[in-house]
């Protein structure tokens, strides 16, 4: 049986790991490659790096990061941030990235999903979606949840799948940073409508939240950042808890 995946997410800026509380207040939490290696040793199934570097050298710093991770880490990883065209993805593939994640670039230009899937295969293309509830409906948001679009989240995810997304990373901005649990209702609803893997993100505060999202929303993977970075949840203990609750995990 396919194991449910636990994915630490590392936000990286200028080659260093940072994590924002609700994406705004950033704190430095170390060297991304060392952190990645530690997570792989602890039993993380996969890693996601979101590069939020904003300088002109961003492409070079991202490629250097990807090469360093691919050289030293023996589990798969996804890189996101600043991928706007095929050429951006091509250099990351050749630097050793297993998958790339696209977010606002796909919303601005949905054909980018088709092009990436056709060129590199659907397994390479993760579409990340930030969602927030507005007057009872979930809308896609951009720029870390600050900008609302008029696209409903469910519609966008179905479109992304049909265009060739290989996986969806869905972050609830209402839950992100709260440590009150994942948005199980939305994740379950989305998961029933797609046939590609779904990664839950936003709201993890304790091990039970992971048990709940796997048992109740049946997602394929769950992602968290600060609770892992600050040692509030230890991956070996989390996986023991999941196994005790009959959630299949790789131990």
């Amino acid at each position, binding site marked *: 049986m396919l*194991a449910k*995946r636990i994915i630490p997410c590392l936000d990286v800026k200028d080659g260093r790991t940072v994590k924002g509380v609700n994406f705004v207040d950033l704190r430095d939490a170390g060297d991304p490659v060392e952190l990645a290696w530690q997570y792989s040793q602890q039993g993380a199934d996969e890693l996601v790096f979101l590069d939020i570097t904003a300088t002109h050298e961003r492409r070079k710093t991202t490629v250097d990061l990807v*090469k360093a991770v691919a050289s030293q880490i023996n589990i*798969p990883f996804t890189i996101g941030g600043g991928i706007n065209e095929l050429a951006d993805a091509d250099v990351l*593939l050749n630097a*050793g990235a*297993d998958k790339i994640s696209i977010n606002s670039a796909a919303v601005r230009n949905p054909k980018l999903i088709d092009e990436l899937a056709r060129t590199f*295969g659907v397994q390479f293309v993760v579409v990340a979606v930030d969602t927030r509830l507005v007057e009872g409906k979930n809308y896609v948001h951009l720029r870390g949840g600050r900008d609302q679009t008029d696209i409903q989240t469910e519609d966008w995810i179905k479109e992304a799948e049909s265009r060739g997304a290989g996986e969806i990373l869905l972050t609830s901005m209402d839950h992100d940073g709260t440590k009150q649990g994942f948005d199980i209702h939305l994740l379950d609803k989305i998961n029933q409508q797609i046939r590609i*893997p779904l990664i839950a993100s936003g709201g993890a505060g304790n091990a039970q939240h992971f048990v709940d999202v796997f048992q109740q929303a049946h997602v394929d*993977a769950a992602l968290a950042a600060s609770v892992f970075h600050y040692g509030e949840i230890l991956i070996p203990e989390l996986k023991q808890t999941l196994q005790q609750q009959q959630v299949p995990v790789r131990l």
Partner: protein
Amino acid sequence: MIGIVNYEAGNIFSITAALKRLQIPYGMVNTPAELEQYDKIIIPGVGHAGAAMQKLQNRGLVEPIKQLKKPVLGICVGMQLLTSFSEEGNADLVDIFPLKTLHFDKRVGEKVPHMGWNRLQFDPSCPLFAGIPANSYFYFVHSYFIEYNAAYTIASCDYGLQFSAAIAKDNFWAVQFHPEKSGAVGEQLLLNFAKF
């Protein structure tokens, strides 16, 4: 020394990085003549099997690979290429193994791609899996699978149906999962192959 067939079908950075970490010497095979320079061959591959076959043909590598008598390890699409046919592009392939590469889509209710860590069943006496605990998890990413066949399947995996996670015939070995991404057990498998 291991030769890695470099035919521009996907990312070979990860496999070379894994060999480097494991201190397994390797070089690149770009032409048929270069196959002679190594005592073992790895055929990697990611992406579209039909397109990968075309690239192998363009480099004149298909017949020379078929003639090899030294240990060969195909990985992922590099495995699928060694079968006779793939539904991906309806392509005729190298045909070492009289097996077909089929799409999961219409055959299982599970999500496609089959992406993540799944358990293998294998014979513990198989040299490719020496020192690897029974039921170990390996990392898979694929939408097409090779049918189970007791004559060639050395490791099987279950994803809505039983398929070949690894196959072997004479000097040819092939795995559907990514040993270079499968943590310590994947590294053990690469070390085992390096000792063949």
